[in-house]
């Protein structure tokens, strides 16, 4: 069994997530936060998971990392495989710690995500001591080097300071240094730039890309900012109400958008391209209540192209081109409605 697992087909993607389902028990009832999410990411690639708040994107990556508190959280179905090995509910894979060593993670608010009573250097050194067996002194020296790599000036002095002495951008750099200290194969970035100034945002994204080029790690980037997606992503998964509604390469999702929600998101985003100037159109309404998920498509009440079937039944995933797919009844063979803002399989 073990030998079979070791024998990984070189074509197997670095990380594959299949049909992940996560629930939370709350006082109001059970929330189905993630309702069957699948995606995969390869070495050196960046996957962006896009969606509005509450769509389950953070829960998805936190369950992969085992950060969902259980109870109230519960992973009810699905798998996540790292190089073919199941990692859901485990802390190690092939003798290596998943958290910190195989997968590094950075969070939205660097101000609250670092321990206020521990120096930055100690916090970066901590995973090195735990996963690599470094001595305290060696780990601290390495932490200073990592801070330098993350382009923090006066790293030696900075390593001895506390989080409250850092600016938000600096803290996020320190977070990145910490997440990457043990050279993980995947970096999960949960809205890494949302809490930062726009100018700082660009610097952080540049830094991530640069480090990716150096180490060949994969990045899973969670964001609601399509600008960030356009800049960073190779692959895009658009999530809505706990499901992936459109999945494909960045080009496919941006230029051949096949789901009305993706189109809605694009129209709600400002652009500086004069050729594509248009009035900003918000998506009316709000996402469905995940205490009692709708029988049909979650987007149906807000969808301008909604059909009878949309409110009755869950749509299937429709493969369009390559691995580009969309989960929408409009792509069903029997549907004859073909809104021109959307991309369809046989149009070019």
């Amino acid at each position, binding site marked *: 069994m073990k030998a079979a697992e070791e024998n990984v087909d070189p074509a197997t993607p670095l990380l594959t997530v299949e049909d992940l389902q996560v629930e939370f028990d709350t006082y109001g009832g059970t929330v189905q936060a993630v309702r069957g999410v699948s995606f995969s990411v390869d070495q050196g690639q960046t996957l962006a998971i896009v969606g509005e708040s509450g769509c389950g994107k953070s829960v998805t990556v936190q369950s992969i990392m085992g950060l969902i508190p259980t109870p109230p959280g519960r992973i009810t179905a699905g798998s996540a495989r790292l190089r073919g090995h199941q990692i859901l509910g485990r802390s190690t894979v092939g003798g290596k710690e998943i958290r910190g060593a195989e997968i590094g993670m950075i969070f939205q608010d660097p101000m609250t995500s670092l321990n206020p009573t521990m120096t930055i250097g100690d916090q970066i050194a901590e995973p090195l001591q735990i996963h690599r067996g470094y001595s305290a002194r060696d780990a601290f020296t390495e932490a200073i080097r990592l801070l330098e790599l993350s382009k923090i000036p006066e790293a030696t002095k900075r390593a001895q300071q506390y989080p409250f002495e850092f600016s938000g951008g600096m803290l996020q750099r320190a977070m990145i240094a910490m997440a990457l200290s043990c050279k993980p194969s995947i970096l999960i970035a949960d809205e890494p730039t949302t809490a930062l100034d726009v100018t700082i945002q660009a610097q952080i994204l540049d830094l991530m890309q640069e480090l990716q080029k150096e180490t060949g790690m994969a990045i899973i980037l969670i964001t609601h900012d399509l600008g960030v997606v356009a800049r960073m992503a190779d692959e895009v998964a658009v999530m809505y109400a706990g499901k992936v509604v459109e999945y494909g390469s960045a080009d496919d999702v941006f230029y051949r958008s096949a789901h009305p929600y993706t189109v809605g998101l694009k129209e709600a985003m400002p652009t500086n391209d004069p050729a594509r100037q248009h009035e900003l159109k918000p998506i009316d*309404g*709000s996402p469905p209540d995940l205490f009692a998920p709708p029988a049909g498509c979650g987007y149906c*009440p807000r969808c301008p192209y909604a*059909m*009878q079937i949309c409110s*009755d039944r869950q749509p299937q995933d429709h493969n369009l081109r390559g691995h580009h797919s969309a989960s929408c*009844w409009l792509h*069903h063979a029997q*549907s004859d409605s073909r809104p021109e803002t959307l991309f369809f399989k046989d149009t070019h």
Partner: protein
Amino acid sequence: MSDLTAASFAPLSDQQPSQVIARPSLSYWQDAWSRLQANRRALVSLYIVIGLLLFTVFGPVVWPVDPAMQDIDQISQPPGTDRTATLVADYEPWFGTSGLPGTGLRLAEKATSQAVRLQWDAVDGASGHRVYRNLFPIGPELSYGIPMAEFLNNDTLYFEDRLDLQPGRFYYVVVALDERGLITDRYQSISVDVERVTTRTEALERGLITESNAVQIGDKITLAWHPLGTDYLGRDLLARLMAGARVSLFIGIGAPFLFVLFGVVYGSAAGFMGGRIDQLMMRFADFVVALPFLLFMILFKIAFGIGPGESGVFPMLVALVVLLWPATARLVRGQILQIREQGYISASELLGASTPYLIMRHMIPNTLGVVLVTVTFAIPSAIFTEAFLSFIGMGVAPPTPSWGSMSNEGIKTMLTTPHELFFPALFISLTVLAFNLLGDGLRDALDARMRNVE
């Protein structure tokens, strides 16, 4: 997918509104009330508090017994004890002459609560005897108890005990003394079961029987009922607890109400005036906070000088108010300063709201919740303070009962009659607990921001 028809793919004609407001909107207080009702612990506490208030206000109507009246037939009686007494003849002096036959230490006649009459035989070589009484057996440490009498001759071989006799078992020891009057290791002991008796005259005086009653000497009569027993002076514990509740709850609720009121006025004045005056006022509040609380409570008590016949309730109330207002003042000032910075105040001002309107509509409702919670938490600590001071004898002056002073009296007889301590302590604990849990519930219900993680 054969069941899919063309109709399935027809455009959805009537789009339902995507969001429906399912719950009716509730006002702040309605919402808070419903949240409080959902909190079972807080609700039970609320019922307990209401019950205590009813007990205090209507208790004396239901149980109209004078808390100061002494029932000397029943002293330190726990609840549920036998209330019968045998009617006996009036007391007549005894000189050790009459008695039952026997040897050694023996009873001269049946032991009653009127008198215990003992006789004994002289111990060889003893030049005197000392009589002890104890509530416990002698035990291996030879604890004889309280010395009752000493006879420095070998002729007096009888003793009559009339001191504070209560139904129950007493242990008497007669120890032989040597020629120097020192005790020797030779002793005789006896255990005596005392029966409660009363005379016809006494029973008539207390209204237990009437002249017309055909009761005879030797008949059993029933004494007055004390549901929670009596204290060391034979006073009805239930009546005293009710009277004590008035004092304890008057101080416990009155003082917090007053000092919170003063704190609110002081704090909002400082908050509104701001600047140098605010600084000065708050510095003064800091000074008052620094006064060692219990020491100053005691200082104030003697400074007020409680005259004879006064209960000392009012001075204690004043002292509590004088010492405890600053915490509320600080809190309210902080709230006012915080609210003044809020966006909705600026928005309201932009829309032309006047200052009185701002105060009525925004400041008061937004501070009221915090103030209410403060009052609720201040009540248990005020009750504790009263109990504490009364316990060390620095609180209300006897004979005014308060739960604290009753505990103080009860603790002295804790070993023999624990009920005298138990009931006042229970009432203090129950009240404090109820107000604490109610405070927790109120805090959670009134302000989600103050919610403590539980």
